[in-house]
């Protein structure tokens, strides 16, 4: 039994790993009636794989049999790979035993589509119901919404899951049409919209009646594959921005495409996944969500692509030098947050600390800002007087000279003499 299970786990974990989402945050589910498990509001990453991604959830497919033939997916119908399927009991056993040993924070359950959407969704629902109702399990559950599943099934699943997600797959409709003719963005939008409406409805009811159950307390997320089709960074981030706004998404994930087939429509096998681009997109995402940037400031028709050699915040600052230097001791919190080299934590500390006296360079350094980067954009109590105004390209040069990107194996600005 154990050997058989090992084999299945290997196949179905391998097939599920291209789903990036592994967050376990945002749920405050309590452990009721002495059961097992609870939600942790900030989530816990229990380990990290060698590619540096966190492992928080047991991420598996119920099955990798699939009736669809999406070019970017390993489980596509035409791909000649081993197929397997878990039984409901096997998934429940695995989850419970891993959870009890503190290996995982919960379950991420997805599935290939077998037969049809409702049939698949119904199986997923059976797993989560068994966990919640029979095993008295209150840990995290991330459930995939199967596109095209009926409203009743999705609604019922939402009562047991902490987070639901459905993937956009490609940033634009045309990209999706090219690689997955059977899928449309419309279907995804319909599902996201349905769940979001339910979330709002349940919240409203909860205000009046305390016993209303939780409905998808950790919200929804989605994912886009980057680099399989020729969209610009602007296309990608505008789509993300639209989805954040319309469906109150908690996260949009960007997954650099890893070549898995010889399909001529996509990058050839052996191409490096676009890790740096992915990183820049996440940085932009963070700037939108936590730093008060509007996506139009970062990406627009004049700059449809993000800079590769510098991060988007620095890049924005260099394009908008008219706002700088700002005085740390008087500037708005919003402006301090926009200084390259100052993060949310440091910005908070600065605005609290400056009430007690003007801040000096050594204090800023101790607070933990990246001073060498920030010094071009700020003034504080003992900033040396400077006659010369540097150009954006000069500042960029200074910053690049003293930082070495983790993505560049060899520094290609300077020849090595010895």
């Amino acid at each position, binding site marked *: 039994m154990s050997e058989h299970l090992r084999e299945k786990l290997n196949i179905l974990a391998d097939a599920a790993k291209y789903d990036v989402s592994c967050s376990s945050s945002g749920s405050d589910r309590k452990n009721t009636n002495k059961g097992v498990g609870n939600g942790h509001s900030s989530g816990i990453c229990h380990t990290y*794989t060698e590619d540096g991604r966190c492992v928080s959830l047991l991420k598996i497919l119920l099955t990798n049999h699939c009736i669809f033939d999406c070019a970017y997916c390993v489980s596509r119908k035409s791909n000649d790979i081993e197929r397997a399927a878990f039984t409901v009991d096997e998934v429940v056993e695995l989850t419970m035993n891993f959870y009890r040993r*503190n290996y995982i924070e919960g379950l991420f359950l997805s599935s290939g589509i077998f037969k049809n959407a409702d049939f698949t969704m119904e199986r997923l629902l059976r797993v989560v119901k068994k966990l919640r109702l029979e095993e008295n399990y209150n840990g995290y559950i991330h459930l995939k919404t199967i596109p095209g599943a009926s409203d009743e099934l999705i609604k019922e699943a939402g009562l047991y899951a902490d987070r639901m997600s459905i993937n956009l797959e490609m940033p634009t409709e045309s990209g999706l049409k090219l690689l997955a003719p059977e899928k449309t963005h419309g279907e995804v939008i319909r599902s996201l919209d349905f769940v979001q409406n339910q979330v709002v409805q349940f919240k409203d009811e909860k205000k009046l009646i305390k016993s209303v159950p939780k409905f998808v307390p950790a919200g929804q997320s989605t994912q886009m594959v980057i680099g399989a089709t020729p969209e610009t960074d602007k296309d990608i981030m505008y789509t993300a921005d639209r989805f954040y706004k319309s469906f109150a998404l908690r996260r949009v994930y960007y997954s650099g495409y890893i070549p898995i087939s010889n399909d001529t429509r996509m990058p050839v096998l052996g191409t490096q996944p676009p890790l740096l681009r992915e990183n820049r997109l996440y940085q932009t995402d963070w700037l939108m969500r936590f730093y008060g940037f509007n996506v139009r400031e970062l990406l627009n028709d004049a700059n449809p692509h993000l800079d590769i050699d510098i991060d988007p915040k620095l890049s924005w600052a260099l394009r908008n030098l008219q706002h700088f230097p700002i005085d740390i001791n008087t500037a708005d919190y919003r402006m301090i947050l926009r200084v390259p080299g100052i993060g949310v934590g440091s910005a908070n500390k600065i605005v609290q600390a400056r009430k007690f006296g003007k801040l000096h360079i050594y204090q800023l350094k101790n607070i933990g800002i990246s001073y060498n980067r920030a010094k071009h954009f700020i003034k504080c109590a003992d900033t040396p007087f400077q006659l010369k105004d540097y150009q954006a390209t000069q500042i960029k040069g200074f910053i690049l000279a003293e930082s070495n990107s983790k993505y560049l194996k060899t520094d290609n600005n300077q020849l090595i003499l010895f």
Partner: protein
Amino acid sequence: MIYVFDGSLEGLLTAVFEYFERKPKTVLLQTEKVFQPDAFTESLKIVNNRAKADRVWNGLQKRLDKQWRRRFYCAYLSELPEIFNSLFQFSNYIFNHPAGAEKNFGNEHVLAIAQIATKVEREKHRMEAFIRFQHTADGMFYCGIDPDFNVLPLIVKHFKDRYADQQWIIYDLKRRYGLFYDLLSVTEITIELNAKNLKQPTVQQLNGTEEMYANLWKDYFKSTNIESRKNTKLHVQHVPKRYWKYLTEKQLS
């Protein structure tokens, strides 16, 4: 002037009381362990006094909000020799200044406490993440750890809330005490067993299915990795090597 105390929280708070009773000019607080008598500086041995300590703690409670009280406690649990003086100076600073003085991150002691507390919280969070229970033959879930800081008092609630229906023991090998949950409450325990067994229970002591699930977990850990994205530097940054000994998935099978 050097105040010498025994390293306990009570002693630390008593020292603050003594400072305000005597008001010497500058004081350095040191533990008995690191104290070196000095011909040019006077020293005072702090005698623990519960009543005095309580008064200081009540005073701090009035002045500091919940977050800062937790920071204070976390910083204390770091057990770093230099943090005791910082906590001492911080308390004096709080009592000597009007309300809200703890927000002055420009002050070195305020900043030190905020930063050390963050480190301790990080270690606490790591323990919540990296503890791997082993199911023993008598139905207990056991894990031995040796965290950088004394974080057991901080993780009690998390594990008690989460694993309410299973008996578990988390044992701090370095500080030689542990937590035992008996399905009702958590108690502090010490175990008289040889250190090797506490670190890794023998096969006989483990439950029959333990090996199977450990192997399944190791398999899962391997399968979920994407080879072409290998990034060892990031991996080690997230899971520093000193924690590998806890991790089932990092043991050879």
